[in-house]
């Protein structure tokens, strides 16, 4: 059963951990490349909330929000980024390939489209294991983006999953960016609904950054994928927080910049979970459901738990 307050608390925690990581990036604490998911928390927390123990989650290079949402101890995440053996991946995976198999995060790829093909195989493997038994059926979630879905592997993996009849839930995090180009700068629009329909793959679009709404819809979609033994696509419209406009100069018009990886330079706060304070911030959206005052103690506790990370000047 989904408890709204618990889910929103997790949303706040996920946000605050990433803000702490951002501050460490500002201090140049890490050698490895990092991809923050500020603004992406709603879908990560929703998936984590409805994921059953037998489900698998397959990630892409921008996975921090999922790894944080699935790891109650933020120190383990930061230690992994510092490549310490005490890290969540024993220092072997860094950020772009971080997995936590004991939490169901079984594979992560930093190559666009790669993880979709593997996820189809993982879903099939689970189906083979479950065949003829009374164990609860699983679903495999795989996260991709509006850039990665341009890869041929996206289509191939959908076709393969449909052919193999496996419940694979493809989450397309659509923030409009692929590195430094927006969709209109790099390609013709893709009608996911039509692409999905060409393979009889249901497509659902989520927008509005409401983590509770996402949780409810994903739960229903998971059940559908399992019942129909089919892949399904969820396109989530996301605004990555922290982009900014450059100053206009002679010959150089002002341009919006998406920082893609590393530091979110315009986000300087470390201990307040709300960033944009607008409908584009899933934390602000959530705090319209339940007033922030209900979470002040949680925020204090999370803040306290992050102090060792923020105070560590050795890293």
């Amino acid at each position: 059963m989904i408890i709204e307050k618990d889910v929103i608390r997790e949303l706040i925690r996920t946000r605050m951990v990433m803000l702490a990581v951002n501050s460490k990036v500002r201090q140049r604490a890490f050698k490895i490349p990092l991809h923050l998911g500020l603004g992406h928390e709603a879908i990560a927390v929703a998936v984590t909330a409805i994921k059953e123990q037998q489900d698998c989650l397959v990630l892409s290079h921008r996975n921090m929000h999922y790894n944080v949402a699935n790891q109650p101890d933020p120190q383990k995440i930061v230690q992994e980024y510092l490549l310490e053996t005490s890290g969540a991946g024993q220092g072997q995976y860094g950020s772009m390939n971080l997995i936590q198999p004991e939490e169901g995060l079984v594979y992560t790829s930093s190559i666009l489209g790669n993880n979709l093909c593997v996820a189809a195989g993982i879903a099939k493997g689970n189906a083979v294991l479950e065949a003829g038994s009374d164990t609860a059926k699983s679903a495999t979630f795989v996260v991709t983006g509006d850039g990665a879905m341009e890869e041929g592997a996206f289509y191939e993996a959908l076709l393969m999953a449909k052919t193999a009849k496996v419940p694979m839930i493809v989450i397309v995090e659509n923030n409009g960016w692929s590195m430094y180009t927006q969709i209109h700068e790099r390609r013709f629009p893709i009608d996911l609904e039509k692409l999905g329909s060409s393979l009889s793959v249901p497509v659902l679009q989520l927008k509005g950054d409401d983590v509770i709404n996402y949780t409810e819809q994903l739960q229903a979609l998971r059940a559908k994928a399992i019942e129909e033994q089919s892949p399904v696509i969820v396109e989530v419209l996301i605004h990555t927080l922290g982009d900014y406009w450059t100053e206009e100069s002679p010959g150089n018009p002002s341009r919006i910049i998406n920082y893609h990886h590393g530091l979110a330079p315009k986000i300087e706060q470390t201990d307040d979970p709300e960033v944009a304070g607008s409908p584009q911030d899933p934390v602000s959206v959530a705090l319209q459901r339940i007033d922030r005052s209900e979470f002040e103690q949680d925020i204090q506790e999370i803040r306290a738990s992050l102090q060792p990370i923020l105070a560590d000047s050795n890293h």
Partner: protein
Amino acid sequence: MSVGYAKAINTLLHEQLLTDEPFVLFGQNVSAGSCLSGLTRGLKTARGLEMFNTPNCENAMVGFGFGLMMRGINSAFVVKQHDFLLLTLDHMVNTYNMIKLGTAKASFTIVCIVVDSGYEGPQSRLNNLADFCSLADIDTYSISSQQEAEAIVPLLKEPGFRIIALSQRLFRQDMRELSGATELPDKLFRYAQTESNDLSIVSFNFALPQALALQAQAGEQGISAEVFSVTNALPKNFSDIISAAKQSKRVVILDDSRSVNKSSDRLHLALLKALPDCHVLCYQKQPSIEAIVPNLDLFTVDHTAILHKLFA
């Protein structure tokens, strides 16, 4: 009674897969049409085996196989042409790297037919196993004899990832069952009637027929010759071959692959370093524009000239 190459391997596949243990075998036309010239015919009757024909999505299929592996399910992807595996290099390298960090529990095998039968023209003729597999140090084995097939096909059930390569040229021939066969470490095979010999012939890739023909002609001239068949595309050490060469003092290396980075070159260098007085001849396929146009594409060696150079 002689058996065709494809039939012999089909029989071994059937034996391996006749088990209640789950195994997934997939690929284009594995249970349709000619079933890859008989290679996968009848397999779907084996217990525990799930077999299905796939769409033409080689990249997805190799990722799929690795995904099955991660969930502890043994599987094999059977593919007609080595060329199509070029589409899968991301998974061969990047996904396999994740497997190497310890996320795999089962076996994943790619059974790949190398189209070396000639007349294909500029495409559909890739025969570069050593180059290909060196990208991620993939265990890769070529099969040219019954003994090799009996040792290599069971790898299908061994945990880990590998490629088993078959020769389309050999599909048109009976499977060679050779006397005097010995299996050595690293799936190296020795075929000889005597312990010590006047000549050591080493075949790489699918050059075993040429090596056996040279052995036979040597025998007609009273020259005893042993043949080593290097089935591993990336052999790790050549100590058995070097020991034999110490005795024979004459080595002929035959390699019919088109790899630029050839394992036969590594053997050649190793012999030059270890046995500077050993007479070594090396015959390999040479790249050329003429080789790319449709042609017989047969690896030919002049046995008479070789034996004359070594024994005249």
